[in-house]
């Protein structure tokens, strides 16, 4: 189900990725084609499922959540439903903003935001350590986001 992009698709996606707030007419100008062509290609990419949408990125610090911690979790894999149980329970912790599963030394990673260190300590003790089937947890404290655009190198 790979989608083959031509040069113009690539040019549009590159510009659009760099600034998702661009209107079709601004995109058309930057790509040197007509608005109708931009619309047609956007529609085609959307219909093919290549474009999944545009999402707003929230700055948690601006909302008073100054602490962000990455929790690297190893699960007790002798339990058959360890992954499912753990993830289902983690979804219920409102301060968790991201859940990822991995192949490697880490099984699951949770991104967690908290107002400050006492708040983090509270969440960690009352909501994280109580999640099922944890064998080990390591924490990485976020100091700074240096790059976060998540663009694809098209």
């Amino acid at each position, binding site marked *: 189900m790979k989608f083959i992009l031509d040069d113009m698709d690539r040019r549009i996606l590159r510009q659009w990725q760099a600034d998702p707030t661009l209107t079709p007419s601004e995109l058309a100008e930057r790509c040197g084609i007509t608005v109708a062509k931009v619309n047609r290609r956007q529609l085609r990419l959307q219909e093919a499922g290549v474009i999944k949408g545009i999402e707003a990125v929230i700055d948690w610090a601006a909302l008073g959540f100054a602490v962000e911690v*990455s929790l690297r979790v190893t699960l007790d894999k002798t339990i058959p439903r360890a992954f499912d149980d753990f993830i289902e329970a983690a979804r219920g912790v409102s301060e968790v903003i991201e859940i990822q599963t991995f192949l490697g030394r880490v099984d699951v990673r949770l991104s967690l*935001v908290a107002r400050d260190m006492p708040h983090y300590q509270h969440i960690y003790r009352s909501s994280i350590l109580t999640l099922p089937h944890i064998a080990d947890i390591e924490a990485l404290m976020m100091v700074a986001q*240096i790059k976060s655009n998540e663009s694809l190198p098209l």
Partner: protein
Amino acid sequence: MIELDDFDHALLRQLQRDASQSAGALGREIGMSQPATWRRIRRLQDAGVIKGRRLRLDAEALGFGVTVFLGVKLATKGRVSLEDFERAVSAIPEVQRVEHVLGMYDYRLRVVARDLPDFERVLRRRIMTLPGAGEVEANVLLSEERLAGPIG
């Protein structure tokens, strides 16, 4: 600090899901008029709560089948400039995210590649050759989900 009410929370949840909706459509979702919704979006943007918008692409459909998270330790702390490392690593197109962290690693990178041989090429030619790069741990991403977080 900006004070948010339930309408703001509902609005943020909608925008996280789909930021391409018009103020009118968003207003209908949260039960508010189009002008009031528009004013609230402006306020959230001006306060920096919405720091930007991201185009979500299907990486796999575009031929990027592998996403790897790397934990990187700096080899010679104190002697390498963090700025030099950060500038060099941010310039690599395959590196989508760079986070300076505190813990068993110094940096956390999100790297996208076409397949595992392509990832190996990026790792060997671009990451391992970075100024100050030391021990590296790789974990291949299998699945990910983003949650609304503590708003509402």
